[in-house]
């Protein structure tokens, strides 16, 4: 691990800043990437006007959001209303602290790394609920209630599927989990059946956790207009938007680390670039799903979770534990 300063505070602050800023940059690039991707999917070129090949589009989007007026509705609870967008980004970025970008580059290699990431992910419903409640808007309230229901339900299968690599490794530490998958013994491939199932399940539940289509019912703009973000303007709205992207990026990174061997690529060497490649590929899959599928209804989402994903997750954990003991 890179040690920048002897003081753990300084080290954490600086490395955290570097990773956060680069994450946000990647997210901005991801915005453009997604818009180009969606454009190609829909027989249109995507952004082309701002900068060469539309490269400056995310910058323009950000500037536009910054110069917009921040409106706080008269009936809203002002403090909570303005607090929520900050918390939502913090919750999304905090999960990134334990992502093992490479053997050296990690903000914090906590011995409870996976749990930290999942805990931060499950923190998301709280600021979203704050936003929905303080907006004093019925659509926002409905969206917030959906978020809480969905967030809490999908934590269960998320945790269960994350348990599969944890059991196989015997450690909660991200670095250990990646190291255990050395020489291409990825948990998505090995053990053969359940590893792949757990991987797909993890991606699905991560989609639901980060409120992406087909699970984006909290913001469901076709029925709830914009859900929790309906009263937000300017950069306050931008924060929610950003958090959603960061959240899905972090989810892809964690999935890559837990199931796809992280920075290690066996005979092809190891390093930051492999981790980034895997993360971005998973991110692209999330975009692909988003621009292809329709949205579930909230009760169908709950049914899917409790009737199918949770029993499946439990079965996976049981199988993995048995396999670990006897193999």
């Amino acid at each position, binding site marked *: 691990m890179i040690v920048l300063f002897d003081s753990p505070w300084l080290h954490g602050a600086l490395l955290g800043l570097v990773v956060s800023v680069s994450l946000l940059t990647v997210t901005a690039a991801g915005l453009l990437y997604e818009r180009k991707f969606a454009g190609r999917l829909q027989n249109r070129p995507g952004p082309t006007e701002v900068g060469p090949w539309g490269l400056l589009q995310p910058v323009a989007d950000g500037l536009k959001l910054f110069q917009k007026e921040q409106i706080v509705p008269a009936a809203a609870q002002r403090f909570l209303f303005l607090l929520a967008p900050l918390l939502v980004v913090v919750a999304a970025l905090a999960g990134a602290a334990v992502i093992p970008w490479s053997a050296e580059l990690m903000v914090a290699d906590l011995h409870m790394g996976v749990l930290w990431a999942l805990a931060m992910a499950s923190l998301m419903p709280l600021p979203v609920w704050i936003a929905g409640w303080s907006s004093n808007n019925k659509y926002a309230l409905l969206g917030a209630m959906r978020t809480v229901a969905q967030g809490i339900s999908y934590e269960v299968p998320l945790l269960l599927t994350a348990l599969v690599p944890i059991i196989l490794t015997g450690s909660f530490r991200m670095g250990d989990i990646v190291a255990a998958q050395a020489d291409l013994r990825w948990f998505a491939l090995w053990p053969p059946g359940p590893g792949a199932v757990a991987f797909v399940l993890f991606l699905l539940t991560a989609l639901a956790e980060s409120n992406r289509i087909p699970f984006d*019912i909290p913001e469901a*703009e*076709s*029925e709830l207009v914009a859900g929790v973000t309906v009263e937000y303007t300017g950069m306050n709205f931008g924060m929610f938007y950003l958090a959603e992207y960061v959240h899905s990026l972090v989810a892809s990174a964690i999935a890559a680390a837990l199931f796809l061997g992280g920075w290690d690529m066996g005979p092809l060497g190891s390093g930051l670039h492999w981790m980034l490649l895997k993360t971005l590929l998973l991110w692209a899959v999330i975009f692909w799903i988003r621009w292809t*599928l329709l949205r579930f*209804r909230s009760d169908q989402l709950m049914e899917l979770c409790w009737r199918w994903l949770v029993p499946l997750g439990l079965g996976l954990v049981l199988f993995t534990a048995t396999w670990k003991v006897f193999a």
Partner: protein
Amino acid sequence: MAVTLSHSLPVQTLPRTMQVGGVTVPVDLVTTGWPDPQMRLEDYDPEADLMTINMGPQHPSTHGVLRVKLWLDGETVVKAVPYVGYLHRGVEKLCEKLTYVQLTPIVDKNDYVSPMMNEMAINMAIENALGIEPPRRAQYMRSILAEIQRIGSHLISVGTWGLDMGGAIGGGATIFMFCMRERELLLDLFEELTGCRFHYNTHTVGGQRHDLPVGWDVKAKQVLARIVERSYEYEQFLVENPICRARARGVAVLDPLLAMECGASGPILRGSGVDFDLRRDAPYAAYGEIEVRVPTRTEGDALARAMVRVDEIRESARIASALLDGVPEGPICALKPVKLPGAVKLMEGETAYAAVEGPRGELGTYLVAQTDRKVGQHPYRLKIRSPSLHALSLLPYLCPGHTLADVVVIIGSLDPIMGEVDR
């Protein structure tokens, strides 16, 4: 002159009674188990904390400026009341002040997704009142254009239904863009024919204004063939998509009796299993000379209505291609080109009703002419029977018991055009 009706409708024999335990009882809304749209909210569970929500008139999924007042118990709709009138432009009143040839571009804007249907309905009513018949070439052109308009309208309907379920930033938008891609080809055809892409003003009293350009039929047939090919893509994307099926199957099952009671027509009626189509049952224009197959579904849910529309896209393409083969030569208008707006005159209280099978159902125009000879160039009263208004009257029956997310699917499956509802 006697009252002229453009067609005589087949007499509808509604089953007014039903058998319950061997006893014949009259059918009413209570015995058939339909939710009571007049439900008093005081009768609902007093423990429930109902939330009133106004969906619209500014809402992304109400297809314009429809406002639906919903009473929600949690997310379940207890009662729904649609309010219309936010797009009222006074078209019917305006028509009383315009001359007959000036009506066409005004009514164009009613059903703005298929403007030619409006033109056709109003001009057919005027022709019926005048007692003139457009030449055969014009009749063929009317049928062909109507079918192409129907395809364009159904493409919008299916595409926006995708938007309702998948969101503007997501899979729904992809379906929508696919549908718009094909609609663009149709608009190009209309542009070549009339010079306009949207509001055409191409039908006129006694026939058509613009003749078919040379080579138009070949181009049109190519486009239609491509759309038939692509229609299977929409089917895969939408009605064969498991999420879409989960969202739309069994949602808002519409009883055929209730549909007829509320005056629903078009794909809504056919989705409920009532085999009724004016093109076949009361042929107008060139439909008498061609076989019209009417796709129907018996499920009556939102999915069935969408599937009827996709089937109709293919059927309309077939009809239009077949008609394009047999367009006769000859004049395109029965009257001389109109120089003065007041040239067409009707008087002595003539009345006429003409209905066409629009993409949304029976689009009718009822016309009462002036009794005064001096002002004979404009109608005394003009009433437009718009299918969307009747479709919206189904909402209070269909919404209760479903969730808020279903309401947008239901509205999308009814496919209302607010310009036509409010006129």
